[in-house]
C-alpha cells in the first residue's frame, strides 16, 4: 500500500474527450480513484456511511421536534452562560465551536508536514489537534453537567418543555462526542508512531502487521475534518434553530 | 428435458389453480369496484408476462439443451432487442399504474356528505363512537382515559357530551351511505379491516387516520386487526353489520351518550341486599360460591365484569346454549333484576361481601402452567388480578373448578359463541390455545399458586 509506481492506464493511453473519457478512466483497471491509497479510499467510504448515520439522527431529531405536542425550550436561554452576572447566550458553544474549527486548522498543518515527512512538526501539530479535541470534549462534559445538574434536563424530560429536547441533545452530542474522543485517541497513537519514526522505517503495525506510512496522517485528517463538519450541522440545528 | 416439462407443468398448474381453486377475493360489498378493477388489470398484465416469459424459457431449455445443439451462438448483446423489451415492459407498467393512481386519488378524498364515525383500537378490541346531535365528535386525549372515561373524551368539550359511545365489538352502519371512519388507537399500532370492503388502514397512537367507503349490500362481516399488536393480535376481532337506515338508527339509540355514562348513579348496596337474597341461595350468603350447586364465587370479582355478565344473561347472549347447563339455570335468575339500577344495586352489595380466597379443588402442575399463563397475563394481569382496560375479570382466588368448566365452554363455543357477548368471542379464541385438559389444569394450578 505505497504510492503508485505510475498512475497506469490513465496516462498510458490518450483519453477520449469529455464524459466518455472520464467514465473510461474511472472504470479502467486496478484503481477507480487513481493515486488514491487504500486506506484513504476506505476512510472516504466509511465517512459516507457515517454521514448517513448522522443524517438519520438529525432527521429524527427534526421529526420529533415537529411531532411533539409540548413547546420546545428556547436554546439561547438553555445554553446561556452566566458570566459575572450577565447571561450571555450561546457563549460556551461559540467557544467550543471555535476550538474545534481551529483544531481542523492544526490538522491541516499536521497533514502538510506529514507529506514532507517532517517528523517533529507533524508530531507537534498532531498533538496540538488532539489537545484541542480533548478541550472540546471537556467543555462538552462541562455543558452536560450544567444542563443536568443546574437546569435539571434529563433524557426523559426537563422543566422547560418538550422531553425530546434532552433526549435528542444528549443522544446526538453524545454520539458526536464519542467520535471526537475516538479521534483524539487515534491522533495520539499516530502522533507517537510519527515521533518514533515508525512511518519512516515502515515498521509493521502492532496488530494489523501493515507497513506504516505517512498516509495514515492524511487518513486521520479526513476523519477529523469530517467530525468538525458534522459539528457545524449539529450546532446549526440545535443552537440556532 | 425434465426441466422444460416441469416448467410448463408449473405454468399450466398455476393457471388452473387460479381459475379452479375456490379461494379468491370475497365478493365485494363496498363501492371500491375500482380497486377490484385495478387488481384484474394487474392480473392480466402480470399473468401475460408470467406465461410468455416462462414458456419461452421452457422452450429454450428444451430446444438448446446439449446434444440438440452443436455450439452456442456468440452474440454479446443486441441493443435493439433490449430496447424493445424495455419499452414493452414500460408500457405494461404504465397500464397497471395509471388506473391504480386514479383509484388511489378517489380512495384518499372523502366525499363531503360522508357520515363520520370513530373506530378506536385498543389492546385487544375495537370500540366505536358516533357524534351526537351536534354532528361533531368531541376532542379526546390519552390523558383523560380512566376506568370511568375509557374513550378518553375531553370532559370540558361540549361537543363530546352527546357523543354516543359503543363499547362492544359490533358496529352497525347504514347501507348505501358513504361513511368516513376516523381511526384512533390508545396504545399500540392496530388496524381496521373488513375484507369485503377492500378498504383498510392502520391506527397509530397520537394520530388520527381515516378511511371511507359506501357499503353496497347488507350483511354481517368480520373486522380484523391486520397490524401486529401483541399477544392477542389474532383475537382482536370486530363485527360490522350493514343494515337499512331504520334498524341502524334503532340500534344506535340503544347506546348511552358520554354525558349519560358519566351521570350514571352509583349502586345502592342496601337496596341490593334485598335482591341478593335470590342469588344467595346458590352463590352463598357471603358470595363465597358453592361447588355443589355449580355457583361460582362472586365476592371480590370486578363489578364491571359482574355487570356485563348479568346483562349477557339477560340478553341471552350467555346461558342460551343448550350445552351450557348451569348457564341456563342462571339466565332466568338474571331476569329477576328488572333494570340497570337493580343490577348496579346488587353489584354494589356484592362489593361489600368479604373476599376470602375460594377453596382450591383443581390439581395440576403449576410450573408447566406458568408458560401458558404468560398469555393469559396479557389481559388478566401478571397475578390474575383482572384489568378493566382489557375487560378481563379477576382469576386469582376465585373458584377454580368454575374456571375449568368455563374454559371448556369457551373452547367448544358453548360460551362466547354469541357475538352479542362483546368480549366472550375473544376469550373463546384464546381458550383454543389450551390444547388438552392437562394443560388447562396446569394453568389453573398456576393461577391458584398466585399470591
Amino acid at each position, binding site marked *: 500500500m505505497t504510492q503508485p509506481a505510475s498512475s497506469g492506464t490513465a496516462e498510458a493511453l490518450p483519453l477520449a474527450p469529455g464524459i466518455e473519457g472520464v467514465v473510461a478512466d474511472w472504470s479502467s*483497471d486496478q484503481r477507480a480513484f487513481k493515486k488514491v491509497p487504500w486506506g484513504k479510499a476506505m476512510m472516504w467510504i466509511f465517512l459516507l456511511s457515517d454521514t448517513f448515520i448522522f443524517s438519520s439522527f438529525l432527521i429524527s431529531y427534526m421529526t420529533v421536534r415537529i411531532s411533539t405536542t409540548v413547546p420546545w425550550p428556547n436554546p439561547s436561554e438553555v445554553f446561556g452562560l452566566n458570566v459575572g452576572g450577565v447571561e450571555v447566550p450561546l457563549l460556551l458553544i461559540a467557544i467550543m465551536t471555535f476550538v474545534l474549527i481551529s483544531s481542523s486548522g492544526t490538522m491541516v498543518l499536521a497533514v502538510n508536514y506529514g507529506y514532507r515527512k517532517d517528523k517533529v512538526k507533524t508530531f507537534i501539530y498532531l498533538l496540538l489537534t488532539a489537545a484541542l479535541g480533548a478541550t472540546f470534549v471537556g467543555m462538552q462534559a462541562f455543558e452536560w453537567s450544567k444542563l443536568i445538574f443546574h437546569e435539571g434536563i434529563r433524557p426523559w424530560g426537563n422543566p422547560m418543555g418538550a422531553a425530546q429536547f434532552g433526549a435528542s441533545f444528549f443522544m446526538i452530542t453524545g454520539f458526536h462526542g464519542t467520535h471526537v474522543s475516538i479521534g483524539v485517541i487515534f491522533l495520539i497513537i499516530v502522533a507517537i508512531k510519527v515521533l518514533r519514526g515508525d512511518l519512516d522505517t515502515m515498521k509493521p503495525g502492532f496488530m494489523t502487521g501493515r507497513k506504516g506510512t505517512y498516509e495514515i496522517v492524511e487518513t486521520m485528517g479526513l476523519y477529523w475534518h469530517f467530525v468538525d463538519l458534522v459539528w457545524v450541522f449539529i450546532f446549526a440545528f440545535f443552537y440556532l434553530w | 428435458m425434465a426441466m422444460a416439462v416441469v416448467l410448463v407443468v408449473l405454468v399450466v398448474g398455476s393457471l388452473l389453480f387460479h381459475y379452479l381453486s375456490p379461494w379468491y377475493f370475497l365478493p365485494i360489498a363496498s363501492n371500491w369496484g375500482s380497486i377490484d378493477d385495478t387488481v384484474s388489470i394487474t392480473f392480466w398484465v402480470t399473468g401475460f408476462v408470467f406465461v410468455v416469459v416462462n414458456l419461452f424459457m421452457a422452450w429454450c431449455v428444451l430446444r438448446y439443451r446439449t446434444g440438440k445443439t452443436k455450439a452456442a451462438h*456468440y*452474440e454479446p448483446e443486441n441493443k435493439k432487442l433490449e430496447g424493445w423489451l424495455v419499452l414493452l415492459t414500460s408500457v405494461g407498467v404504465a397500464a397497471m399504474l395509471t388506473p391504480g393512481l386514479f383509484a388511489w386519488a378517489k380512495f384518499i378524498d372523502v366525499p363531503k356528505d360522508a357520515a363520520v364515525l370513530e373506530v378506536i383500537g385498543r389492546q385487544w378490541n375495537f370500540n366505536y363512537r358516533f357524534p351526537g346531535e351536534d354532528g361533531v365528535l368531541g376532542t379526546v386525549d390519552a390523558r383523560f382515559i380512566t376506568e370511568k372515561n375509557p374513550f378518553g373524551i375531553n370532559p370540558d368539550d361540549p361537543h363530546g357530551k352527546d357523543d354516543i359511545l359503543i363499547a362492544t365489538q359490533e358496529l352497525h352502519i347504514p347501507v348505501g351511505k358513504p361513511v368516513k371512519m376516523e381511526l384512533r388507537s390508545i*396504545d399500540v399500532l392496530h388496524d381496521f379491516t373488513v375484507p369485503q370492503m377492500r378498504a383498510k388502514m392502520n391506527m*397509530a397512537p397520537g394520530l388520527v387516520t381515516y378511511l371511507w367507503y359506501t357499503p353496497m349490500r347488507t350483511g354481517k362481516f368480520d373486522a380484523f386487526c391486520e397490524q401486529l399488536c401483541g399477544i392477542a393480535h389474532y383475537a382482536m376481532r370486530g363485527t360490522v353489520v350493514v343494515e337499512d337506515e331504520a334498524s341502524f338508527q334503532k340500534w344506535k339509540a340503544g347506546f348511552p351518550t358520554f354525558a349519560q355514562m358519566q351521570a350514571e348513579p352509583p349502586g345502592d348496596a342496601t337496596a341490593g341486599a334485598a335482591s341478593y337474597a335470590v342469588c344467595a341461595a346458590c352463590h352463598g350468603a357471603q358470595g363465597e360460591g358453592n361447588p355443589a350447586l355449580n355457583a361460582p364465587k362472586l365476592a371480590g370479582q370486578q363489578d364491571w365484569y359482574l355487570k356485563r355478565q348479568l346483562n349477557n344473561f339477560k340478553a341471552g347472549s350467555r346461558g342460551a346454549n343448550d350445552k351450557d347447563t348451569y348457564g341456563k339455570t342462571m339466565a332466568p335468575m338474571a331476569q329477576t333484576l328488572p333494570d340497570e339500577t337493580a343490577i348496579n344495586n346488587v353489584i354494589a352489595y356484592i362489593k361489600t361481601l368479604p373476599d376470602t380466597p375460594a377453596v382450591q379443588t383443581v390439581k395440576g402442575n403449576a410450573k408447566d402452567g406458568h408458560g401458558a399463563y404468560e398469555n393469559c397475563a396479557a389481559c388478566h394481569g401478571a397475578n390474575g388480578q383482572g384489568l378493566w382496560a382489557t375487560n378481563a375479570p379477576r382469576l386469582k382466588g376465585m373458584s377454580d373448578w368454575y374456571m375449568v368448566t368455563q374454559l371448556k365452554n369457551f373452547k367448544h363455543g358453548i360460551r362466547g359463541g354469541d357475538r352479542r357477548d362483546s368480549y366472550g368471542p375473544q376469550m373463546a379464541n384464546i381458550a383454543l390455545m389450551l390444547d*388438552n385438559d392437562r394443560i388447562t389444569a396446569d394453568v389453573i394450578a398456576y393461577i391458584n399458586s398466585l399470591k
Partner: protein
Amino acid sequence: MTYVTHDETEFVPPMEVDEPELYHPKTWIGKYVWSQDAKVIAVQYALTAMFVGLVALVLSGIMRLQLGWPHTFSFITPSTYLQYVTMHGMIMVIYLLTALFLGGFGNYLIPLMVGARDMVFPYVNMISYWVYLFAVLLLLASFFVPGGATGSGWTLYPPQAILDGTPGASWGIILMLVSLAFFIIGFTMGGLNYVVTVLQARTRGMTLMRLPLTVWGIFMATILALLAFPALFVSCIMMILDHTLGTSFFMPALVDKGQQLGYNGGSPILFQHLFWFFGHPEVYIVALPAFGIVSDLISINARKNIFGYRMMVWAILAIGGLSFIVWAHHMYVSGMNPYFGFFFATTTLIIAVPTALKVYNWVLTLWRGKIHFTVPMLFAIGFVFTFINGGLTGLFLGNVPVDIPLSGTMFVVAHFHMVMAVSPILVVFGAIYHWYPKITGRMLNDRMGKLHFWITFIGTYAIYYPMHYLGFMGVPRRYYALGDTLIIPQSAHALNEAITIAALVVAAVQIVFLYNLVWSYFNGEPSGPNPWRATTLEWQTPDTPPKHGNFGPTLPIVYRWAYDYSVPGAPDDFIPQNQPPGKKAGPGVSAAGLRPA
C-alpha cells in the same frame, strides 16, 4: 461508452500498486481460527450463517405445524408463536442471507475474481467475522432470558415492541436491538473491505466493465448495505433509549393496560420510515448478489456469454439507486400522509423495468445456448422461474390501491417468500454446488444434488403459490390461529395443512444437502482446477483449493471480459480471462485497446 467490453486487448498497463505484504500465520490457530485469509473468513461466515439458518428453518417448521394443525401442540402458545415468527424472519433475512451472500460469498469470491491477493485490510476483515459471531450469540441468547425472545415481528414496530403486551418486551427486545447494532458494526468493517477491494485492488487489465456480474452484484449490495444499515442502527439506538431511559422518540402519549405511561409526543411513524429506509434496500441486498451469481451460473452452463452484459451492469446500478426511493411502499396503510402513495407507487413500479431487463437477459442467455443441466444450472433456472413469479406479485403490492386489500395478509408473506425465501435461497444452493469444488477440491455428489433440487424447487413453489390465495381471501399474517370467522371457508384449513406438509418435506430434504456437504468433503470425486470450464479468474488459480495469496508468485493479467464462451474460431469453447490474445481471431473481436477506438 463506445468501447465494447467483450473486446480482448493486447495492451497491458503497468503495475499501479505494489502487492500488499500478507500476514502469514505460523500456527494452526492463526491459519484457521484467527485467520486473516479472506477465504477462511468466508468459510467461517458461511458455516455460522448456515447454522443460524437451520435454527430459523426449524422455527419455520414449528410455525407451519401451528398453522397447519392449530391447537394440537400445546408448547406453541400465542406468545411463543410470535417469538418464532420474529426470530425466524430476522435470522433469515439478516443473519442468514445478508451474512452468507456478503460475508460468505463476498469474502471468498471478490479477491479471487478481481485478481487480488486478499482483501485490502485482512485484519479488519477478520474482526468483522468475530463481531458478527458475537451478534449471532447475543441473538440466540435472547431465547433464554426471562420473558424470552421478542415477539414484535421482524419489523420491531414500536410502541408495541417495547410494551409488555408483546412477548419478550423486557429483555428479548433489548438483546435483539443490541445484536443488530453489533451486526451492523461488524458488517461495516467487512463491507468497507469489499468495496475498496473492488474499487482499488483489481489486477492489471481488470477494468470495471470486465468484472464478472457476481462481483458487480455483491459490490452493489455492499454499497446499499453501507448506506442503508445506518438508518437501522440509529433506530435501534433510539428504541433502546425509549425502552431503558424512557425517552420519547417513537412513543406518543399512550395508555398501556389502563396505565398512563410517561411517554409523550414521539412518532411511531418515524420508526417505520427509518426501518423501511433500511428495510427496502435490505431486500435488494439479498437479491442483488443472487442476480449476479445467477448470471454467471447461467452463462457458464449455457456455454454462452451473458446476454447484454453492459445492460446487466446498468440494471444493477439502477436497481440499487431506485431502491432508496421506494421504501414507503411498505407503509401504504400505515397512516402516513396519503399523498406519498402517488410518488412511491410510481417509483416502486419503475423498479420493475430494470429488473425485467435482467430477467429477459437471463432467458436470452439460454436462448441459442448449449445448455448443460448441471445441478447449479438447475438451481439457476429454478431461480428465474420463482423470481419472475415473486417479482410479479410484488407489482400487485407496489400498485397502491391493490396493496390496500392485500397488505397485512398472507399474500405479502407469499410474495416475499417467493422472491426472497425461495429465489435467492435457490441461488445460494446453486452457488454452493458451483464453488464447492474450488473450496474443497471435490465435487458435490450429483444424484443427491438433483434430488435436493427437485424437491426444494417444486416443494417451495407448492408452499407459496397457494399461499397467495389465502391472502386474497383476507387471511391475516402473524395470526396464531384463525379461530372461527365468517370469511374463511373450511377448505382454507385444508389448504393450510397441504402447505404445511409441503414445507415439512422441503425442510426435511435439506438434510440430504447437509449430508452431501459432509460426505463429498471426504468422498467426492476430485474436481481438478476448473471443473465447469469457466473463464473467471478464481478457476485459473495455480492450486485448488487456492492457497493464501490466491495466485502463486505472480498475479494474473486480464486480457478480456469474463464471458468469452463459444467464441467463433476459438479452439476451445471458453477462453480464460487471463489468456493472452492472438491465439485466435474471429468476428466481433478487434484488437482495440481499453480506449474507444
